[in-house]
C-alpha cells in the first residue's frame, strides 16, 4: 500500500499489443503468471527466459524499460522481506562473507523475488497497454459477474471525484490553520472520513436516481461488446504458451 495508488499506469499508444482485445490480454497475463508461479525455483534459467519473453512484449508494446523498472518499486517491501529470508529461515546453513545463511532461505528469497518481479512486470505491461474502460469490458467478457464489473466501473468513474472531494476537504482544513501532526488530530481526520463516506453514499443515491430516470432497471444495457478473432487470441496467447514450454522444460530438466 502507499501513495502508489494514485497514478494510473496506462501509456497511450498504437502498438500491436495496445490493439489486442482486452480480454485476450487479461487472459494472457493471468496464464503467464500462473505458469511462472508453477515453475520450480531451481530452474533459474527458466526465469531468465521469462524475463526475456516479457522484455519482448515490452519492446513490442513500445513500453520503455525505465517505465517498467520504476513501477517495479511497488515490490520493495517484499524485496526487503526476501532479503531477510536467508537470515531467518531454518535448515541447512552456508557461510557467505562470514554470515551464516540458510540455504532454504536463499532459495525462498530467490523464489519470491523472481516470481514476484515477473508478476509485477506482467501486470504493469497489461495496465500500460490497456485503457481502463477496455479493462472493464475485458473483465466483463471473461465472465466476471456483471454486478462486480458494474461496481468496479462505478468505482473507477467516481474514484477521481471522491479523491477530489477529499483533497478539497484537506485544503479547507489547512486554510483554517489545521495541520494533522499526530494522534491527537485523528478525531478531526476521522470526521473528514465520515463526511466523505456520507457524501459518497449520498452521491451513490443520486447516481441511482439519475440511472432510474433513464430507464435503469437492474441490468446495464449492453452498449459495447469486445470481440476477438482467432488470430488475435493466438497472438495474445503466444506469451503464456511460450512460458508453458519453458515451465515444462524446467520440470523435466
Amino acid at each position, binding site marked *: 500500500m502507499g501513495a502508489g495508488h494514485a497514478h494510473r499506469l496506462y501509456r497511450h499508444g498504437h502498438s500491436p499489443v495496445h490493439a489486442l482485445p482486452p480480454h485476450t490480454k487479461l487472459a494472457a497475463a493471468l496464464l503467464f503468471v500462473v505458469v511462472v508461479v508453477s515453475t520450480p525455483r531451481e530452474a533459474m534459467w527458466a526465469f531468465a527466459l521469462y524475463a526475456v519473453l516479457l522484455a519482448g512484449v515490452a519492446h513490442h508494446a513500445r513500453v520503455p524499460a525505465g517505465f517498467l523498472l520504476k513501477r517495479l518499486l511497488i515490490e520493495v517491501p517484499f524485496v526487503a522481506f526476501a532479503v531477510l529470508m536467508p537470515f531467518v529461515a531454518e535448515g541447512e546453513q552456508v557461510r557467505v562473507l562470514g554470515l551464516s545463511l540458510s540455504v532454504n532461505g536463499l532459495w525462498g528469497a530467490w523464489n519470491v523475488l523472481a516470481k514476484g518481479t515477473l508478476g509485477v512486470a506482467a501486470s504493469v505491461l497489461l495496465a500500460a497497454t490497456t485503457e481502463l*474502460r477496455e479493462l*472493464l469490458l475485458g473483465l466483463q467478457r471473461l465472465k466476471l459477474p456483471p454486478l462486480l464489473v458494474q461496481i468496479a466501473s462505478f468505482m473507477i468513474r467516481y474514484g477521481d471525484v471522491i479523491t477530489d472531494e477529499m483533497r478539497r476537504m484537506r485544503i479547507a482544513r489547512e486554510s483554517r490553520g489545521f495541520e494533522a501532526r499526530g494522534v491527537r488530530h485523528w478525531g478531526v481526520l476521522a470526521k473528514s472520513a465520515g463526511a466523505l463516506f456520507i457524501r459518497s453514499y449520498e452521491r451513490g443515491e443520486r447516481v441511482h*436516481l439519475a440511472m*432510474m*430516470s*433513464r*430507464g435503469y432497471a437492474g441490468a446495464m444495457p449492453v*452498449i*459495447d461488446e469486445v470481440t476477438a478473432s482467432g488470430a488475435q487470441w493466438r497472438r495474445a496467447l503466444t506469451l503464456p504458451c511460450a512460458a508453458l514450454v519453458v515451465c515444462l522444460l524446467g520440470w523435466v530438466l
Partner: protein
Amino acid sequence: MGPVTASLEVSGLAFAYPDGHQALFGVDFSLARGERVALLGPNGAGKTTLVLHLNGILGGGTGSVTVAGLPVGKQHMAAIRQKVGIVFQDPDDQLFMPTVREDVAFGPAAAGIRGAALEERVRGALERVGMQDFADRPPHHLSFGQRRRVAVATVLAMEPEILVLDEPSSNLDPASRRELADILRSLDVTVLMVTHDLPYALELCPRSLILSEGVIAADGPTGELLSDDTLMRAHRLELPFGFDPASVTMGA
C-alpha cells in the same frame, strides 16, 4: 385524451417522507406542449421533491401526475421515464458511465435500442449540445459547463416529451450559461426549469410557477411575477442587485 393533450398535468399532489417531513401540500399545474416554464421557489420549498414525482421516482402520496395523457405509476414506468427527461443539478451524478458516448447511449440502450439506430441517437444528441467531438472522452476530463451540456444530451438522446432541468445555470460561467441558453432555446420540447436564477428564468421562460411551502403560490408570465414586489418578498425571492425585469426585452 383530447387532441390538445397537455405535456404535463399535476393535480392535487401531496407527499410526505416517511420520516414525517411533509414536502408537498397539494400541487396543481399543467404545461402545454412546447411551453418553456420556470419553477421558482426558495430553498426547501419542495422543488426537488416535485421533480422526483414527475417520473415516478417518488410516489405513494395523494394526487396525480400525468405525462402526455399517461398517468405516472407502476404500469407505465418505462414509458414515463422515457418521456420525462430529468437533468440533475450535479452533472457528475448524471454522467456515471466511463465515456461520454456510453453515457449518452445509456438511456436509449436501456430502452432496447441497438446498433446503428443507437449510434444515430447518440450522435444527434451530442450535436444538439455541440459536444460531438468529445464522444470518447471520460466525463471527468471535461469542464463543468461541458459536463452540464453532456448531461442535457444524455436526456435528449431519449427523445423526451418534456425536459426537466434542476438548476441548469448553477456553477456556470457567463459564457457557458449563454451557450446553454442557446441550446435550450433551440429545442422544440416542453421544458420545465427549476431555478433560483431569476434573470435566466426571465430570459428563457415566458411563464413561471412559484412553489412555496409545498403549494403553487403563483402562476403567470415571468415578467409580471418578477415585477410583483410583494409576491416576491412573500416567497423569499430576490432579484440580483440592479436588475429590473421591466427593462428587459424577452427573447421567448
